[in-house]
């Protein structure tokens, strides 16, 4: 080891947790600004905005639905940070959502025990989603297929797989404890929000402090150089797709729990677009090498809030979709402008 006589000055330690670094960049100020503006607007013009009742009443679009999107988007952030993309997340959400009820509603001996049933009902779908993520990873690393093309396969086939698994049936399960994942509360905070926060905190921590996090950023920043530095870039990329798959699966489980039903044709529909949009708005560049995990959360919040605002103003859902699409285009355009 090299000569380690020189002691590091203390100031280096303090730099790590500075808030300005978190909010770096004009784009982030823009996002936060818009977020604040929208919140204020809603406070003023939407009755019962701040109470949880008001929030949960919004038809189809409620603020709490940001949790699943944020979770998927966090996985997407990591994938994009390696210079890739994962189009299959929407379908993976559907697959996880389709498998879960089959497990915890099952009447097989072990599984009919509610505790085991629900635990397996969470673990098995996540495992399956992770395996599909690994499938993506292999296409990208072993076959060297471009990520957008590789994940296109599951984008096309995945929802079909979910439909086949559930046989096209909408599985309803009122009264099962599984729904606690969606509607339960701990200390009056919805479980899903807690899960979301835990996921984001853990992922952000991994990116910042672990070796894997360094490897991830290096691989996305310059894969050739990383390989030459001994970094197992292929392993890193495969892992990242697995993570994306698992998180997508988790999001799917939450959605299914919220709705107390699993409709393979609808769970996670357009999930990939939402996730990509959140990542773009959050400031993670598509060229890879940087992962703004908290920025993605901001992005997801903003997009959801926009949707919510539109719907509560009685703008028909189709129009809200159009406006949403336009906003996403706008944000991605801005990002390209900044980077070029």
């Amino acid at each position, binding site marked *: 080891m090299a000569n380690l006589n020189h*002691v*590091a000055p203390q100031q*280096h330690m303090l730099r790590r947790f500075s808030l300005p670094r978190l909010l770096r960049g004009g784009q982030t100020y823009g996002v936060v600004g818009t977020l604040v503006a929208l919140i204020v607007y809603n406070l003023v013009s939407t009755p019962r905005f701040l109470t949880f009742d008001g929030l949960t009443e919004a038809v189809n679009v409620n603020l709490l639905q940001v949790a699943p999107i944020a979770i998927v988007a966090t996985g997407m952030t990591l994938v994009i940070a390696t210079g890739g993309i994962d189009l299959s997340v929407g379908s993976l959400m559907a697959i996880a959502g389709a498998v879960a009820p089959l497990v915890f509603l099952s009447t097989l001996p072990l599984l009919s025990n509610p505790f085991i049933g629900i635990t397996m009902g969470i673990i098995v779908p996540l495992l399956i989603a992770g395996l599909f993520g690994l499938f993506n990873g292999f296409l990208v690393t072993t076959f060297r297929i471009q990520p957008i093309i590789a994940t296109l396969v599951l984008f096309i086939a995945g929802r079909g797989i979910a439909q086949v698994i559930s046989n096209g049936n909408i599985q309803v399960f009122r009264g099962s404890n599984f729904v606690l994942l969606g509607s339960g509360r701990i200390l009056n905070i919805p479980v899903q929000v807690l899960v979301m926060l835990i996921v984001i905190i853990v992922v952000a921590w991994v990116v910042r402090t672990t070796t894997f996090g*360094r490897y991830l*950023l*290096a691989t996305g*920043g310059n894969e050739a150089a990383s390989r030459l530095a*001994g970094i197992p870039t292929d392993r890193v990329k495969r892992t990242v797709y697995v993570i994306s798959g698992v998180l997508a699966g988790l999001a799917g489980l939450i959605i299914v729990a919220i709705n107390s039903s699993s409709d393979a044709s609808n769970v996670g529909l357009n999930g990939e677009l939402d996730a990509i949009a959140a990542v773009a708005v959050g400031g993670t560049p598509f060229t890879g*090498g*940087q992962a703004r995990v908290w920025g993605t959360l901001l992005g997801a919040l903003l997009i959801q809030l926009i949707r919510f605002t539109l719907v509560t103003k009685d703008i028909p859902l189709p129009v809200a979709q159009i406006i949403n699409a336009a906003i996403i285009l706008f944000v991605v355009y801005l990002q390209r402008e900044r980077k070029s």
Partner: protein
Amino acid sequence: MAQTDPLLHMEHIAKAFPGVVALVDAHLRIQRGEVHALIGQNGAGKSTLIKILTGAYRRDSGSILLDGRTVDFQSPQQAQNGGISTIYQEVNLVPFRSVAENVFMGREPRRFGFLNWRQMHKETDALLSRLGISIDVTKPLLTYNIAIQQMVAIARAISFKSKLVVMDEPTSSLNENEVATLFKVIRQLKVEGVSVIFVGHRLDEIYAICDRVTIMRDGRTVEERELHTLGKIELVAKMLGKELGDVRKSGQTGFTVSEHRTGEKVLLEAEGLRRGRVLQGVTLQVHAGEIVGLAGLLGSGRTEVARSIFAADPLDAGSILLDGQQTHFHSPADAIRAGVGLCSEDRKAEGIIPYLSVRENLTLAALPVLSRHGIVSHEKQQQIVDTFIERLGIKTSSPDQKIRELSGGNQQKVLLARWLCLNPKLLILDEPTRGIDIGAKAEIQRLIDELAEKGLGVLMISSELEELTEGSDRVVVLRDGQTVATLLHEKISQDAIMTAMAHGDDDGTQIVATDEELQYGKS
């Protein structure tokens, strides 16, 4: 030769970018039908001058006269239409499209609005035969090797009836036979009255094909002469800004130790390395504490040897012994663990992680050592970073500064530190001082000296003869993927190296191919 009106006259060209002045006062004068060399070290300004000429950049001041008329091209397209074509180092054609399509892309001949394939093929055939090439022009461009692809690019240039063809490092990807073909084509262009600007750095080639030369240094044109009035050494002297006598003396580089205390121990023994057509049996040895220079022309396989030893690329055959033990490296990670480091040739493509900090870049390969249970120890990381910033004199505002903001020399130092902090046994350096200013160059060379003194074995690839002659204890010369000479200390001289590079085993191998060899068969 009567002094007729020059075809091209660029005068007093100046160009500055934010933070750097590329051109101060550059001139360029090209006569009709001449092959004109444009040479200079890295940073002399020749690429900038060419880019201004071809419309990729706008000049700040100065004038450009083409055929007596003032021109101001705003895009390469305009330059093309004005009669100036450019052949880039990276062939900028479309590989999947056929040869004929590439030649006529954008101006395809038509009949009644529809493409006239027959005419396109016929005219392409004609163009290529003017260059002495006869191939099947209906096949995709990627069917043919780089040399032919470059010929196609030239054919395209001619089809525009260009008066001036700029060739930017055209021979860097070519082997000898292909270079000979290229030169034949250039001579043909001359005959047709087309002028050629040949931007290059291989002196032999320049002397073989060019008529006159413009030498640039530090953003200025310092010399414009007929080549036959300028000796090679004098030319080099002018490029470096030295006096003639100086060049002969040693002390051109930061290598001051004349002979390192080489151990008896053979650190690295590579034998019979083979890979595809690129490595055809390379053998070399490195002792602990020794600097072995690896010389050869571009394409001789030096980088490939380095990468193969480091397991960045697989070998077809051959053995590598490290410390007397057979190595079984499957990837760079294995080599690193065994104590080998490779500092690659292209910083930007294979060295720096641009948006990561100096700290992250420096400790990148050391992470396995710096982490416990997967978590990086910030203190250990910091200690290493501070140590090496000081030891190598890395100029950075803080260890957290993004590495892309550092100068080339400082980036290279960070990359060196990346390997040094692992305390390797063997360090492979591929062009360690390329693209770095003179001061930093000398610093790095001194550093390499020190490392050898401390017992590190160094395999140094360099295209700069002074580095090889002054820095190496031994020089291994490669040619066409084979070891053709191993020069021991006393025998090392620039002449010996160049002779070995040029003539190899000296079994009468011809450098210039015959006319028959130039006919690429219709396959």
